[in-house]
């Protein structure tokens, strides 16, 4: 079981009707592996995620997933004024397992509450989603994916806009989910985060590199990924990426 990759992408190209915006992507992730996907805006991170979610067909190549997939979108994309509680959002994860004409019952409510407890929000089940903090909303969406019993979780910049303690909490949660055998793919701008994960995939309209962080996160790769917008920080000599809005075309 552990031998089979949970995600297997082979010579993938994808686009939106015109020429592909992402080409030559080939990588695999085993169950329990955490993969950070790095790249500039427009580099193809969300295109890859949409293909993995089954939302966009591959133009060439294949993208195969073993097991169920779950998505944890950026919470700003959800409608924060929506009249839903944390529990309501978690319950949305049960819908994929029910026939479309069935409403969630007692069992589904229990699973949603359990998932909220797992992400540490057991006592905020009744709170309005829009009134939660950014990190709490992120965790509610993780709970929704857990309720779906997702084997592969696609996380879209989960650390953007959350403070340091919250980021640590989320990081611990993701580690635990990976330890339980789930595969995590995270789109991110954050080099520090990426360094802490098992694998790094660098994209800039094509695949630049894939492998363990130590091997991948070299100056050459980062410059190819971010187009030369990499600076070396004085202390420790580590590379950092300039904030995205400084070097957007």
């Amino acid at each position, binding site marked *: 079981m552990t031998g089979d990759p949970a995600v297997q992408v082979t010579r993938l190209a994808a686009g939106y009707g015109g020429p592909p915006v992402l080409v030559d992507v080939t990588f695999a992730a085993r169950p329990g592996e955490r993969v950070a996907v790095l790249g500039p805006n427009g580099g193809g991170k969300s295109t890859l995620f949409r293909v993995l979610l089954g939302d966009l067909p591959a133009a060439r190549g294949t993208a195969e997933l073993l097991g169920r997939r779950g998505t944890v979108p950026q919470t700003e994309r959800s409608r924060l004024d929506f009249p839903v509680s944390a529990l309501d959002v978690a319950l949305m994860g049960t819908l994929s397992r029910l026939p*479309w004409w069935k409403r969630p019952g007692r069992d589904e409510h229990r699973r949603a509450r359990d998932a909220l407890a797992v992400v540490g929000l057991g006592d905020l089940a009744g709170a309005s989603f829009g009134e939660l903090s950014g990190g709490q909303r992120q965790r509610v969406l993780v709970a929704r994916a857990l309720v779906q019993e997702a084997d592969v979780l696609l996380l879209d910049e989960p650390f953007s806009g959350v403070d340091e303690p919250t980021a640590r909490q989320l990081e611990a949660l993701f580690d635990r989910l990976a330890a339980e055998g789930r595969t995590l793919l995270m789109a991110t701008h954050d080099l520090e985060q990426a360094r802490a994960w098992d694998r790094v995939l660098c994209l800039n309209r094509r695949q630049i590199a894939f492998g363990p962080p130590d091997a991948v996160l070299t100056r050459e790769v980062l410059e190819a990924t971010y187009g030369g917008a990499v600076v070396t920080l004085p202390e420790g000599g580590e590379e950092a990426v300039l904030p995205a809005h400084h070097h957007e075309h």
Partner: protein
Amino acid sequence: MQATVALATPLAAIGDVFSLPFVQRGVVEVLLLAVGAGLLGTWIVLRGLAFYSHAVGTAAFPGLVVADGLGFAAPIGAFAAAALFAAAVGRLADSRRRGYDVVTALILVGALALGVILASDVFHSAANVETLLFGSLLVIDAGDLALAGATSALAVLATLALGRTWLASGFDADATRAIGMRSRAPDLILFALIALATVAALSAVGALLVSALFVVPAATVRLWTRRMLPWQIATVVLVAVEGVVGLWISVEWNAPPGAAIALLAGGVFAVAALAVTRARRPAVLVGGIVALAVVAGGCGAAGSSDGKPEVVATTTQIGDFARAVGGDAIDVHQILQPNTDPHDYEPRPADVQAAAGARLVLVNGDDLDVWAKKVVEEAGGHPAVLDLGTKVPVKRGSDPHWWHDPVNAQAAVSAVHDALVRADPGHRATFARNAAAYLRRVRALDAAIRACFTRIPASDRKLVTDHDAFGYFARRYGIDVVGAVIPSQTTQAQASAGDVARLDALIKREDVRAVFPESSLSPKLAQAIARDTGATARYTLYGDTLGPRGSAGATYLGMEAANARAMAQAFTGRPDACEGVRP
């Protein structure tokens, strides 16, 4: 003690209003509709479907035309068209890429265009279409109640079963497929249900009320609630309250109930929005509610009858006949007012009340005032109904404008006389004297018009009018109807470019000197044709209704005399032609 009295009087007045049977049926209809409208309203607001819900009722138009043309029940045609509309929007709108608005607008334009073409060019006489869409809270029948109840029951069931799914797909549309909801069925059901509820409300209460019931109350409550269930419950309650209060205001003010409820709902929304933005100060809300209550309460009740027999007349000319024959012995309640198109009419509470208390109802018949039958049926009284269209000797197919032939007018006046005698035998002598005097004047006018037109060469007596309303007049006085701007006996059809071009050519070939706009219609097209052809559009005719008080056409005799003078002056080009033709 004083406070009790002060409170008891308005309460008693409210009780009076709700003791009227037609008001009670309206209340039941509003309460039945409130459940479905409130529930679906929250989904409409949540999912951004306000424009869709407004459009789907309007898009029923081609279905109504086809139902009328092929002769099956109007609601079936409306439902079929609305369901097709729902399916088309549901299929074409990919919620993740573009909103529903663009697709809705595209299909709505298509549906309206199709309806106009069907009405104007396929089923040439679509005279009934507008009456099929007629609906008012004051004339609710058992079928309307059953439909409203069924719709509300379906809305409750669907909300229980599918509410979670509707919520999830609205929450983040991007993730709906990703979290495994691949079926389009729940959204299609939501569209279909909104279509059904809209058409049900449309046929029962009219187009204006649909948004007032379905969108405004849900949007109002949305300002204050942060959860689905309280939002839905409060919206149902608010729809019910606004509906009942609006109905009461409509009876007190004698306003159309649809408009009263829509205004009330809009006012409540404005007050609520203001209260929310103004730092949630309750004083503003209280002030607003007090202001609304004062406005609502400031109106007096309608005056009471003075014991004379009440006679209801649908059109202005029939009202004139009734007043001429009845004189001071009767009270005439005339439903249509001068310059109102009989095709666009929503009854007011006073109309229904008058029909409920009337001894005699006089209608034009020939599909001009089909709504009158419904008003009488639902009013709850038992008046005699006289269809004058069946009493006149000269008929042109289904052309309802029979009064433009004075021979018919004489027959109608005689029939009105007979019916008044039956309704109030005590005033037999008065009615006979009045009728005889009036008939003499009609005959004298008829002779004067005939004498005038015989002096005009037949080749000059060529008539082009706005819509085909003067066939009776033309036949009586030997006038050649060359054409009409709207080539139909209804004002609802539209002229095509080909129609206008043919008419232009005809006017030039026949050397027609004048095109006549009608007093109750827009003169634009007639004026444009006059410009193209060199004819004049200076003379206006009274077609469907009498003119307002003080105008030459304020009475039936004045109307026919004015029409005769206008035609004679246009035919001859002499501004003094037939000047002697006066009532």
